């Protein structure tokens, strides 16, 4: 499972990082610092929850 983030449209709510701080890394201004990642095994549910919590709907889950 992969997470893909439409980084330019992040406005810095940081809800993803509030739910999964180890997965969704922020820059010093509080915007998302990454464009996506492979979800480590066992963390799929957490990643899914964090993606769903994005008020801008810029985080997508790509299933294998």
């Amino acid at each position: 499972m992969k997470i893909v983030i439409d980084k330019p449209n992040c406005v810095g709510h940081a809800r993803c990082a509030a739910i999964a701080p180890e997965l969704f890394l922020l820059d010093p201004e509080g915007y998302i610092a990454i464009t996506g990642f492979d979800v480590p095994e066992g963390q799929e549910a957490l990643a899914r929850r964090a993606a769903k919590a994005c008020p801008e709907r810029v985080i997508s889950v790509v299933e294998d």
Partner: protein
Amino acid sequence: MNVETKVAREAIPAHVDPAFVRDYNVFQGYRFDEIGDLHEGLFRMGEELGRGIFWTPHNGGHWFINDHELLFQAVRKPDLFSSSKMTIPPMPPEQEPVFIPLTLDPPEHGPFRMPLMKAFAPDAIMKMEAGIRSLARGLIEAVVPNGRCEFIDAIGEPLPVTVFMNMMGMPLERMTEFREWMFDMASDDNARRANAYVRVTEAMGELIRERENGRKDDLISRLMDTDIDGRPPSFEENQSYGMLLFTAGLDTLVNGFSFGVFELTRQPALQERIKADRSLIPALIEELLRRYGIPMPPRIVMHDAEFGGVHLKQGDRVVMMLPAGNLDPQSFEDPLRFDIDREEVPHLAFNSGPHRCVGSHLARLELRVFFEEWFRAMPTVRLDPEDKPVYRPGLNLAIVKLPIIWDVPS
């Protein structure tokens, strides 16, 4: 129900289809005298008048949007719905306040927003936690032995106003004046609002002049030394930053605390549950933000356009009824139910799009620390049966009086 018939045809501009006219005064709330609850009123308005975009002749005549998905689309179209003019009823152009960065539109908006993004980033505000905690603890512990308090006067206002004044570097002796201006800014009386804008601008000007003679470790000093496309902000721009922080960060947060405590008085079992498990506080806060949204920011239409099935004309004003969006059953099941076990669904309490509330992380921090201290020290609270809460409809939904009682711990 033929809801538009109450409005005289001549009060409706030619470009507005009468089918989209509703008799709704934002400063009176929806059927507020009967329903007695501002948020329930917003929900009932959706059920009875419909959800979408509508026009009302009140307060100078303006559109309002109360549908969650339509709001989500509208707030990310700053080229159509500009925040450059945000007064309802509209103020004369020379009195229309400037709040940097809120009343700027992209792309000008970005460079002015960045210094605030840094100052209010999740990591940056964590160093304020200890100060907020000791302030909250002091205010709560001071009233516990009394068995009663008027929550807003005792805690709801002093807490966020003190945090704000400390952060900005304002002298705390001016607290009373600040609280009065905050109240005046929420008025539908343009003269009172204009006066408050002038006073706050002056107070910010005094503070900036003091810092011109020597910086301190406060936000206004940092803003003065910031870089906007290769130059520092001007004196007037710094005043506008101050205005924004004052108007966006005070009345809103006061009501976040107040609606939260109000909801707790309705739910003694929830109070017991959270006391036994403080890890539920973040879920309490998210549900509080959803169920009791506060600001309804106005926008101005930049060019004629079709949107949501209506014709918009350049210069039309539009109220983004974000709290109504959070009570839209198409997005939130049984939306009036206060349920901290809801799966996290994004709400619009802090808006969305380029003008997402820059203070959202600080607001959540203050709410979390407040409730942690509240549940640590405060017995189960209930409404005072002899003295009712007082609400204030308007562009910021508010409780202005909240008398509560509890059994004094022996």
